[in-house]
């Protein structure tokens, strides 16, 4: 068995920080439904509202703009469907949704559903070779017929290659025509500076487990003026936009993690950015024909997430490489979604103009708050032999 686990998959999920575990554990021992009127209920409600205020403070919004959800996927669904429905019912001409081809499946699949079932017309705007939206294409697409656009959805940072999107420019272009903007910031909060008010965005998705909080708690930050049609009906706990008994322990853990991650973000970026540089340099030294995908590494946090390294290993199947590294206790991701049990080539890489072979030969290494130099060095020691072996298997498979 392996001596230790080298976890290089923080973009999938990252360990909980002690502050979040403590906040959650404390609440597990308490009773009280945040909607109840008695003392226990009021106590729970206070925890939920203080958490809301903590998160609002951290991401630059008003507390009333934080709608708690079960996580990023629900937040994306709520934003896209909820905004589309309310915008279209206000004006039936608004059926177009503009987005990019590199969004997370929580966005793309929601939009696909709206297209299939609700008559939406979804336009995936082109990205450049680094995965960054071409803002001119957005300008043209809106300008062609502004009154028909229901909303624009562009992620803050990409989950596979880490590319940061020009959210402020997107907002500027969309707002010039009165079109609201949603951004999926699940990967961004805690990794790069995220200020909801300053960005001008109308709705923003975030989640707990990507930044040291628990799985199962997230939020949609949305401006008070923005009409969002509810998806989940019931007690109306979250501004009537989202129902369900408030998950007090998870919310408390989520808030503690957001607070800490945002507070430590500047040091995090420097430390993790340096580790990422060491990782990329070392891999390229060990495997000279490996190719770094995505945006420039420097300045750290300017073009891509500090912890993201995405590399192609020509001649290798990413699956084989992942398995060989896993056997040595080194955990990473092929970055591809496992659709219907069969691994698919990454839609992100394809949208960036790579061919399927490149997409299939790629691995994502993502560093996080608990990453160490030892983790990186373990990878650097293993990557050369593993690539060599995976290449042999790649040849055998043809």
């Amino acid at each position, binding site marked *: 068995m392996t001596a230790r686990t080298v976890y290089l998959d923080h973009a999938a999920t990252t360990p909980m920080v002690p502050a979040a575990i403590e906040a959650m554990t404390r609440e597990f021992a308490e009773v009280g439904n945040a909607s109840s009127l008695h003392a226990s209920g009021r106590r729970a409600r206070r925890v939920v509202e203080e958490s809301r205020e903590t998160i609002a403070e951290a991401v630059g919004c008003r507390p009333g703009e934080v709608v708690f959800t079960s996580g990023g996927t629900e937040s994306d669904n709520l934003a896209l469907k909820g905004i589309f429905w309310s915008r279209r019912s206000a004006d039936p001409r608004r059926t177009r949704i503009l987005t990019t081809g590199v969004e997370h499946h929580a966005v793309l699949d929601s939009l696909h559903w709206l297209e299939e079932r609700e008559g939406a017309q979804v336009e995936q705007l082109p990205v450049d070779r680094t995965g960054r939206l071409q803002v001119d294409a957005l300008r043209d697409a809106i300008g062609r017929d502004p009154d028909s656009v229901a909303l624009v959805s562009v992620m803050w940072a990409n989950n596979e290659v880490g590319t940061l999107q020009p959210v402020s420019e997107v907002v500027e272009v969309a707002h010039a025509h009165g079109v609201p903007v949603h951004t999926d910031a699940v990967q961004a909060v805690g990794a790069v500076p995220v200020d909801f008010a300053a960005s001008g965005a109308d709705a923003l998705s975030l989640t707990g487990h990507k930044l040291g909080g628990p799985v199962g708690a997230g939020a949609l930050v949305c401006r008070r003026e923005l009409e969002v049609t509810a998806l989940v009906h019931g007690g109306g706990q979250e501004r009537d936009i989202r129902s369900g008994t408030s998950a007090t322990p998870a919310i408390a853990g989520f808030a503690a993690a957001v607070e800490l991650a945002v507070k430590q973000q500047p040091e995090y970026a420097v430390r993790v950015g340096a580790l990422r540089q060491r990782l990329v340099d070392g891999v390229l030294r060990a495997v000279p024909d490996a190719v770094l995908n995505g945006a420039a590494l420097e300045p750290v946090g300017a073009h891509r997430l500090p912890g993201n390294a995405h590399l192609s290993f020509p001649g290798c199947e990413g*699956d*084989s490489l992942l*398995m060989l590294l896993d*056997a040595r206790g080194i955990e990473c991701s092929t970055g591809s979604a496992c659709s*219907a049990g*069969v691994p698919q080539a990454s839609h992100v890489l394809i949208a960036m103009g790579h061919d399927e072979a490149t997409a299939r030969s790629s691995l994502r290494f993502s560093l996080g708050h608990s990453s160490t130099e030892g983790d990186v060095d373990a990878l650097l020691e293993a990557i050369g032999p593993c690539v060599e072996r995976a290449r042999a*298997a790649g040849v*055998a*498979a043809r």
Partner: protein
Amino acid sequence: MRVVAAMSGGVDSAVAAARAKDAGHDVTGVHLALSRNPASYRSGARGCCTIEDANDARRAADVIGIPFYVWDLSDRFHEDVVEDFMDEYAAGRTPNPCLRCNERIKFAAVLDRALALGFDAVATGHYATLREGDDGLVELHRAVDGAKDQSYVLGVLDQGQLRHSLFPLGDTPKPQVRAEAAERGLLVADKPDSHDICFVADGDNAGWLREKLGDRAPNSGGAILDEAGVELGRHDGTYAFTIGQRKGLRLGRPAPDGRPRFVLDIEPVSGTVTVGPREHLAVDGLTGIRPRWCGSVPDVLEGTVQLRAHGEEHRARVAVVGDAVDIELLDPAYGIAPGQAAVIYDGSRVVGSATISATRRVQAA
């Protein structure tokens, strides 16, 4: 040894993986994703390529305590097995895709990849046994459980493949394997056996071929004739028929003598299907092409041949003639179609196999 256990999600391959681990091997479970689009192939619990099957395999690997991955071989499977299956039917032959899959996928693509990745062998849940012969070669033998024996579908494996294969179930009757699965806490213990062809939903070959062949079908209809050339009915495409078939002929008129009629011949170019009485199906000789030998190549062999999965053994005299094999059947066989595999046995040992290219009908006395 480092072993890849191919895990379909069924009970047999799960127990095989567990036994390989118990034997002291370093085992990694691998589920083969063979369908490009799982929804378009078979769904439900009987197939080998649904998401539920992958999940069942994953849970079995958890219980056994081995790592688990899904390997995508859908492109290879489509090219080497599914396309071949369609081509063969279009040409009026009756292929066995399971042999093809073993020859090209499980003990070729998977084995090659496994060896390249540093593994030593592939283990499967096939019911067959391996022994070392006096000459040092690995011999493939029938399983102890005659009813479950799957040596027929492994008759395409050569020595190089057999050397890197493990069949941990060959010494055990199936009911015992189920009982063992239950004892081991494997949830697939009572999962039904898979049958038929994994990529054909509901076992409806003709319906599947009609949909998939489309323009590639050699004909979209033709006459069903008796041996005198009298038209007895029409059909929607010769690919829906196999030699020896009795059901589904939908002939309005019964034979004058009231006896059942069988497909005797299929002519894909003209689209003609000829039917007649069972005794006219009798075959006493076969020509086999593309022979595959498990070990050394015999010149002449007095042994037995099996002509379909779970079919009976026929006493036979087998001679290798150039690239082909001539098989003389000492007792006649019925309903033998070109495309089927003839697997040659010497006692319980599998000698090799060949694809039937022609049959010799018994001449009426």
